[in-house]
């Protein structure tokens, strides 16, 4: 069976009409690629870096705050070591990682290598379990509690971005990269700060700290050290148990999240659900995108169906002749399927190329015109291979939906009518 010449000549003689259908499919897919790449770009370039997502089965627990005018007070249950222990007993909880605060003042000195003079500042510290941030530690470094030697420190990734976009330009210093900062050492003075002074001169310690990585779970306005290190310092310098500032609760699975969240809230604590709200908003945007893609698919399919109905009506006599000289019903269906698929593939490819080109052009334009602001994204569009492939596949899928009925109609051509066509 060689239908190639028939298909080629059919496409050639109907090229104007088919070009209109290809254009319709292509323009829909162009818009889809453009919108989806912007949504994906905003998610990857803006939402994700600003609001690091936790795994679906991990909840961030904080003390509940009550707003009174412009002030916020802690209210409800207290978050302390006992509360962390009680969280572990909730059904569906696999592990709880407490985030510790410092019960003593602290300051830091250093930075000659970067800013040309020694900088002195108060710092705030939090302690997190090393396992929670293991993936953020730079290669060749460790984030473990060491009684002696350098104190490993993690810094918030957003802090570096703030420095690069606001501090560095104002003091006329170059921007810093994560690679340049990792390994940087500075002096940490425990038990003393410019704001609180020296509560107990006998309990002042000087330690060398070293930045070992950047983390989205690190303290935004200070440093983050291993929880056992901070616990030991709190005992030795402040002679107090470590204050708990928050906790990460790992559930035994995403299915447990709802029940565990309710149990935590019943205990008077709050679950930070901002990432989940953003996630839900993105899911809604995704669903709307899906609806748009579905509508687009149906419209394209409708256009293809309408065109092929017209073509088949015009070719009714030819189809009857083909049947009379030996074509089977399925041969005629196949002709329609193949021609529609070629139209769909062409529309899909043209749409993807145009959509990608427009998206890249828009990206370059926005990035070039956007001023240097904190958290300025590197891109506002993202063109993933999955997106491009899915969009390209929409063309033939629309063609197949649209061709189904015309193909069946073509197969019904009556061969006997060829004899009565005189």
């Amino acid at each position, binding site marked *: *069976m*060689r*239908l190639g*010449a*028939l298909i080629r*000549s*059919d496409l*050639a*003689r109907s090229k104007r009409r088919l070009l209109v259908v290809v254009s319709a499919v292509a323009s829909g897919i162009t818009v889809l690629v453009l919108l989806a790449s912007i949504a994906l770009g905003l998610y990857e370039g803006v939402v994700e870096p600003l609001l690091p997502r936790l795994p679906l089965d991990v909840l961030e627990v904080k003390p509940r705050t009550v707003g009174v005018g412009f002030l916020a007070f802690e209210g409800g249950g207290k978050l302390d070591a006992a509360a962390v222990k009680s969280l572990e007993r909730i059904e569906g909880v696999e592990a709880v990682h407490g985030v510790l605060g410092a019960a003593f003042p602290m300051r830091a000195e250093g930075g000659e290598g970067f800013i040309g003079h020694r900088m002195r500042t108060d710092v705030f510290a939090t302690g997190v379990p090393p396992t929670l941030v293991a993936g953020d530690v730079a290669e060749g470094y460790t984030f473990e509690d060491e009684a002696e030697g350098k104190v490993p420190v993690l810094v918030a990734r957003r802090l570096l971005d703030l420095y690069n976009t606001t501090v560095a330009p104002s003091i006329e210093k170059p921007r810093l990269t994560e690679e340049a900062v990792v390994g940087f050492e500075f002096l940490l003075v425990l038990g003393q700060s410019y704001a609180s002074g020296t509560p107990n001169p006998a309990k002042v310690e000087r330690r060398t700290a070293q930045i070992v990585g950047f983390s989205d779970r690190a303290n935004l306005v200070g440093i983050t050290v291993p929880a056992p290190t901070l616990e030991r310092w709190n005992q030795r310098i402040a002679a107090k148990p470590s204050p708990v500032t928050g906790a990460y609760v790992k559930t035994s699975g995403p299915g447990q999240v709802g029940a565990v969240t309710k149990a935590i809230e019943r205990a008077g604590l709050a679950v930070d659900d901002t990432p989940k709200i953003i996630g839900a908003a993105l899911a809604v945007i995704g669903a709307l995108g899906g609806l748009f893609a579905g509508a687009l698919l149906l419209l394209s399919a409708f256009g293809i169906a309408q065109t092929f109905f017209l073509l088949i009506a015009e070719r009714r*006599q*030819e189809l009857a*002749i*083909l*049947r*009379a*000289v*030996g*074509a*089977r*019903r*399925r*041969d005629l269906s196949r002709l329609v399927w193949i021609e529609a698929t070629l139209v769909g593939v062409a529309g899909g490819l043209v749409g993807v190329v145009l959509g990608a080109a427009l998206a890249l052009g828009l990206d370059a334009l926005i990035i070039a015109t956007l001023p240097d602001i904190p958290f300025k994204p590197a891109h506002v569009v993202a063109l993933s291979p999955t997106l491009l492939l899915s969009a390209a596949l929409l063309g033939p899928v629309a063609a197949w939906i649209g061709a189904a009925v015309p193909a069946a109609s073509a197969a019904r051509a009556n*061969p*006997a009518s*060829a*004899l*009565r*066509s*005189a």
Partner: protein
Amino acid sequence: MSAVVALSGVARSFEEGGRRRDVLAGIDLEVNAGEMVALVGPSGCGKTTLLSIVGALDAGFAGRAELLGRDLAKLDDDTRSGLRAAQLGFVFQAFCLLDHLTVRQNVEVPLWLLDDGPDAEASARRASEMLERVGLGGREAESVMQLSGGERQRVAIARAMINRPKLLLADEPTGNLDPKTGARIFELFDAIRGEEGCAVLVATHDAALAERADRVVRLDGGRVEGSPP
């Protein structure tokens, strides 16, 4: 001599405006290999309907119709299509060429529809041979739209013969042609029949041309003239 076509009591009726119209009312007919039979009769006497049944284009008949020894009533649609593609050749009054294809492509179409047809090169070569035989050698690349009526009918004959059919069915093949061209087309049928040994069943209004056939079968009122009512 073996029968290529054997009809026995073949009847066909159609529903028109809620009324049944009997077009064929018990046809008995045999066409043997290498024989040319002319079907003649007034308009509406059932010539085209009979050709549709014999050509495996219409399965809605009553009675028994055998083509090359196969009971047409028992064949499914795909098998009938295969039979048309491999064993039958059709020549229509209106030529029924595909206007968007070239002369050679039109002739090749039946070969394209065969599951085990020849490759592109062999197919083109065979089409050129057939065109040479019908006097259209060297015209392969032309559009069929540029041809005269007689030339178009010769392309149709080349198409009908390209599969070396056992039976050539022609429905008023000279109906749209002037008498001189019509006579040439009949000569062509006769020559091809002699060379290929195929049977020819041709429906025609033209009594003079019909006389060139081996046998003339007259249809009237849905019956073969002279057959018992």
